[in-house]
């Protein structure tokens, strides 16, 4: 199993550009999450999904959109990128849910907005 994979690993965007961060998991997990991690800080939950077709906002959803059309994929869309969105983005998945289950993290996407 590859686990949780993310693409791209690095990206530089100009202010106002858009992009999609890809996340795929091959563990047949129902739950998937997107976090951002600013330098020297902990992780903040952006969006999460409890299954295909179901998504919900986390702590910091503004400026982002998600979709979950399949169990495996959970892309994160940035519209009109801003410097404040410069961060490392981690995707994670779990089989049961946040409250009782281990989260498996992908390697991250390092995004810089200039």
């Amino acid at each position, binding site marked *: 199993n590859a686990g949780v994979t993310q693409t791209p690993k690095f990206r530089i965007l100009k202010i106002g550009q858009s992009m999609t961060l890809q996340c795929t998991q091959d563990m047949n997990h129902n739950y998937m999450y997107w976090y951002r991690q600013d330098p020297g800080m902990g992780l903040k939950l952006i969006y999460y999904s409890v299954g295909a077709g179901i998504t919900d906002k986390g702590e910091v959803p503004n400026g982002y959109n998600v979709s979950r059309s399949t169990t495996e994929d959970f892309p994160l869309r940035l519209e009109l990128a801003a410097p404040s969105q410069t961060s490392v983005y981690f995707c*994670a998945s779990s089989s049961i849910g946040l409250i009782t289950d281990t989260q498996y993290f992908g390697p991250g996407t390092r995004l810089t907005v200039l």
Partner: protein
Amino acid sequence: GQQVMQIPQYQHVQEGEDFTTYCNSSTTLSNIQWYKQRPGGHPVFLIQLVKSGEVKKQKRLTFQFGEAKKNSSLHITATQTTDVGTYFCAVFNNDMRFGAGTRLTVKP
């Protein structure tokens, strides 16, 4: 959502010394998780604590959940250079909240 305070922010130790990081909450927690993140890496799950007063050990790592379920600690005995990284606690209350982490550096 639930906020957790994690201290200290940084800790530098000589190899062989002990290390402890603490997570504190103003409200009762249902559970708490601990993660380790190596420099440049992604968070890796270490353990979950659920019961009041629970103590779990993983080799040199000892995890405790307070009796009131408002605080938790991670203690490393006789640190090694492989322990370097940032240790995070995470709690759930409507959504997942991570502490700011304790960055551990170990001098050989």
